[in-house]
Structure formats: structure tokens, C-alpha cells
């Protein structure tokens, strides 16, 4: 039995080019549904970083890796996003931010019961920084700037690998 499905959904980027013939349109929809049914859900990352340029660059890295991205300029916004019911596959957490820093935001998220892997990002590689962040509850620690290759390794390590396209 064949079903003709017209569903209002957005295929994950980059979508396959829509075919010209109606009969092929049906096949295209079924392929996209099958892709979703196999669990290739587009992963979502929360980027918590106060410096605008850093957010723009990391956003582009995440987009190129086929990952959705929400952004928070400080730790309080990150916590508020979770209070509002948002959830993520990974959180990239800067350390020094106005209003609420990365340590405090991490502590609050863990107290809320958020189990999402949190990767601490800092420009310093001080041992004291690492210890404070791990005490707060992060899963991993990286010095900035975060390259594409380092990010891919982090994603794989924390189980967010299914969105990663083949390296070009």
C-alpha cells in the first residue's frame, strides 16, 4: 500500500534537491521520513559565550557540522533557557561572562538536574580553572579557540557524532 504524505516539516540541511516529477516527490518524502525514522535527528548545541565574534565563529563551525545552535550571552540566559524547557545534546560553556559566569551556570544546571554533557571553554589552561570547572560539574574542558577538529573529537567523545558529515 502506498501512502501519499503531505506533511509540514522542514528537512534537515542540506536537503536533497527536490526532484521535478510528482512521482519522484513521493519517493523524496519517504526517503526524508525514513532518514528521520532511523534516528538521524539533527542535534542541538547550546553555545554560552559573551564575546560576539566568538559566538559567530563557533556558530558557523556548528552549522558546517550540521548542528543546530542556540546561543546565550551569559550563564543566566543559559539557565533560563533550560527553565523554559529547552534541552540540548551538548553545552559549550565559556568561563568568564558578565551576570553569571560559567562555573555558576554549570552548578545551577546540575542542581536543576540537567544531565547534558557540558564542555568548559576557557582561554586559560590553568589547573585551578580545570579543577573549579570539574567541581562545578562539567564533563570536559577545552582551551579556546576551539578548532573544528577539536570540536569533532568532543562531539564523538560525548555521543553527538551522528550529525557529523564526512570530513572534506
Amino acid at each position, binding site marked *: 500500500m502506498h501512502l501519499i504524505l503531505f506533511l509540514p516539516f522542514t528537512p534537515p540541511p542540506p536537503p536533497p534537491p527536490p526532484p521535478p516529477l510528482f512521482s519522484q516527490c513521493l519517493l523524496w518524502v519517504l526517503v526524508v521520513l525514513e532518514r528521520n525514522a532511523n534516528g538521524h535527528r539533527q542535534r542541538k548545541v547550546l553555545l554560552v559565550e559573551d*564575546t560576539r*565574534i566568538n559566538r*559567530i*565563529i563557533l556558530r558557523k563551525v556548528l552549522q558546517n557540522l550540521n548542528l543546530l545552535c542556540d546561543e546565550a550571552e551569559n550563564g543566566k540566559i543559559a539557565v533560563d533557557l533550560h527553565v523554559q524547557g529547552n534541552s540540548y545534546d551538548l553545552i559549550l560553556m565559556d568561563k568568564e561572562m558578565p551576570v553569571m559566569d560559567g562555573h555558576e551556570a554549570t552548578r545551577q544546571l546540575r542542581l536543576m538536574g540537567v544531565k547534558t554533557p557540558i564542555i568548559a571553554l576557557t*582561554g586559560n589552561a590553568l589547573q585551578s580553572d580545570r579543577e573549579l570547572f570539574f567541581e562545578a560539574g562539567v564533563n570536559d574542558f577545552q582551551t579556546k*579557540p576551539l578548532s573544528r577538529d577539536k570540536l569533532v573529537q568532543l562531539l564523538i567523545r560525548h555521543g553527538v557524532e551522528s550529525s557529523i558529515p564526512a570530513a572534506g
Partner: protein
Amino acid sequence: MGKSDEAAASREEEAMQLAAAKQEYAEHMDSLRAEGLLDDQFLELQQLQDESSPDFVEEVVLLFIQDSGRIIQNLTDSLEQTPVNFKKVDAHVHQFKGSSSSIGAKRVKAVCIILHMCCDREDQQGCLFALEHVKREFDLIKGKLQTMLKLEKQIIALGGTPPFEDKL
């Protein structure tokens, strides 16, 4: 000379102009790296540019120049206050260090670290001296990046396409 000969001569001249422009660009970028003005992070930035964001590098560079000018003004104003709020000064330095690191502006980042150390010691004179270094390094990289963008536009006007260097 027939029309086809003229057309061929014209194409050859355009090809030579394009090759010369690319050579000038390559030498300019080599000098930026050799002088330690840009590090590998800038290459990461260039590799993020693609068909979906064809002006990504230009956008980030222009934003860096604009934001940096503002931060330098904030630093100058903050260091002229009596007494100096070193925490506020350090917050500005942190922002500048972060953005310069993300774009690969290696020498700007290095002098920001020196300025940060002076803030830690609450050494106003040291901060003022370091700020002059920061301004000099920023002016230098700003001019070089603006030249880079100008050369890229020339290559595009002559029919060239990115990447503008073979090593990318």
C-alpha cells in the same frame, strides 16, 4: 590583427593580471604569518567560508576591527579614571584577548596578556604602557587585514574565486 586574435590577447592579459594579483595576495598573507601577526586560527576561519557564507571572512574581520576600536576606547577611558577600576579594565582586556585569539591575531593576543597581568597587579602605569602596545599592534593588524580584503576584491574583480591561496 583579427578579432579572434584580439580576444585571445585580451584573455591572456586578463589571465596575467589575475595571476599577478594572486601572487601579491599570497605574498601579503605569507608576510602576515612570517611576522607572527596571524596564526593558524586565521586559516581555520578561512576554511569556514563556503557557498552559504561567501563573505564570512570579511564579515568577521570587519566586526573584529569595529569591536576592537570600541574596546580600545573603553580601555583608554577606564584607565583614565581615578581610582582605576581594574576589574572593569580586565573585563575589557578579556574580551579583546578572546576575540583576537578567535581571529588568529597572535600579536594582539600576546600584548593583551601583558595588559591583563598589569591589571592583576593593579599597576596603572604598567597598564597604560601595555595599552600603547595594544594600540600599536591593533593598528598594524587592522591595516594588514584591510589590505588583504582589498586584494581579495581585486582578485574577484579579475574573475578569480576563493580560495585565494593554493594552500587552503
